[in-house]
């Protein structure tokens, strides 16, 4: 009787160990499986590269908002540059105020110069300059996923 009890205990222990190990392996596998499933392999989001058309559409000393793409195309004496219209505070879309000559965010009142530098408000950083170039067909292209570390103009 005592021996039988002993054996039952040891087999129960082995059962628990094997069971827990199996559950652990299954949980680990499910975690990897779940992570892979939840990460989309294809995104149906708009391309970060925007075709802004021929550069002569943008007259000298103008700021042209493109609300759909969230950018400003600015033409200055030095050349053309593209500025992100997404506020660096919490991501609202800013608006160009031609009568004041500034960019203003409607959400929390940040204000910027047309070169992106902050005038006032909670925004922690200036509006970033975006990579811009003229493609082979002579169209202005802007890559919204690449910000420029320093000012860079597209000359025409």
């Amino acid at each position, binding site marked *: 009787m005592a021996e039988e009890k002993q054996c039952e205990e040891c087999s129960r222990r082995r059962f628990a160990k094997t069971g827990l190990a199996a559950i652990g392996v299954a949980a680990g596998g499910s975690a990897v*499986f779940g992570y*892979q*499933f*939840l*990460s*989309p*392999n*294809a995104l149906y989001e708009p391309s970060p590269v925007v075709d802004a058309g021929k550069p002569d559409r943008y007259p000298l000393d103008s700021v042209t908002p493109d609300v759909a793409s969230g950018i400003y195309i600015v033409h200055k004496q030095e050349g053309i540059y593209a500025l992100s219209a997404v506020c660096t505070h919490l991501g609202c879309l800013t608006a160009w105020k031609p009568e004041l000559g500034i960019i203003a965010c409607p959400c929390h009142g940040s204000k910027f110069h047309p070169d992106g530098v902050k005038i006032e408000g909670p925004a922690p950083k200036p509006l970033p300059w975006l990579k811009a170039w003229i493609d082979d067909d002579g169209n202005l292209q802007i890559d919204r996923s690449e910000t420029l570390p320093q000012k860079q103009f597209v000359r025409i």
Partner: protein
Amino acid sequence: MITDIRDTPVWRSIFRSGQGDSNLNRAQRVQQNVFLHLASVKVRSKALEFGVTWYLGTLSLGCFMVLVVTGILLMLYYHPSVPQAYLDMKDLQFVVSAGMFLRNLHRWSAHAMVLLVFAHMFKVFYRGAYRSPREFNWVIGVMLLMVTLFLSYTGYLLPWDQLAFWAITVGSNIMSAVPGLGAKARFLMLGGNTVNANALLRFYVLHCVILPLAAFIFLAVHFWRIRKDGGLHTGEKTHE
């Protein structure tokens, strides 16, 4: 150590009954747990033998659980709109990691569940387990069969392919053959006169919200009634 944890105020605030050192405490641990209270406090060992049930009800429940989990995961990549539904279904097969696996798991579990529910009902019928005092649980079981079939039928439309479209066209036309109410019922079910975007959305809501909710409610009553009707029918009384 486990004993120490079970004596902490936090543990005792969650599980009120004490340790299972007496029959009363063991019974209370089942009865005072919202999940376990559906189960019987005591089960006859005969009821756990394979031959009594072939575990068909448990297997049906297992299929249902697999369907709930895989169904929720599939919902993450599925838009119930025209023609996006078909494109999403194809993406699940060819783009999403493990999408094909989950979709097929959902599909085969659905087939298996219909089969198992029928087998479960035959087993209950031929063993006479539907007789008093379990006759009401048989009625609940018939409701669950209906919910299972409606879940199958509504899920059929969601891939939005040719098979789905014509299957629901045929199915809904069969429905309209009901005298008097048929045509109106078909109009309400489809949200229009043809199988279109409204029908897809209605079937989606039925398939993902209304019918699973109904299934959960009937399942709870079904399991609770097993306990209230004196446990599983083992046939012991007639044999001994």
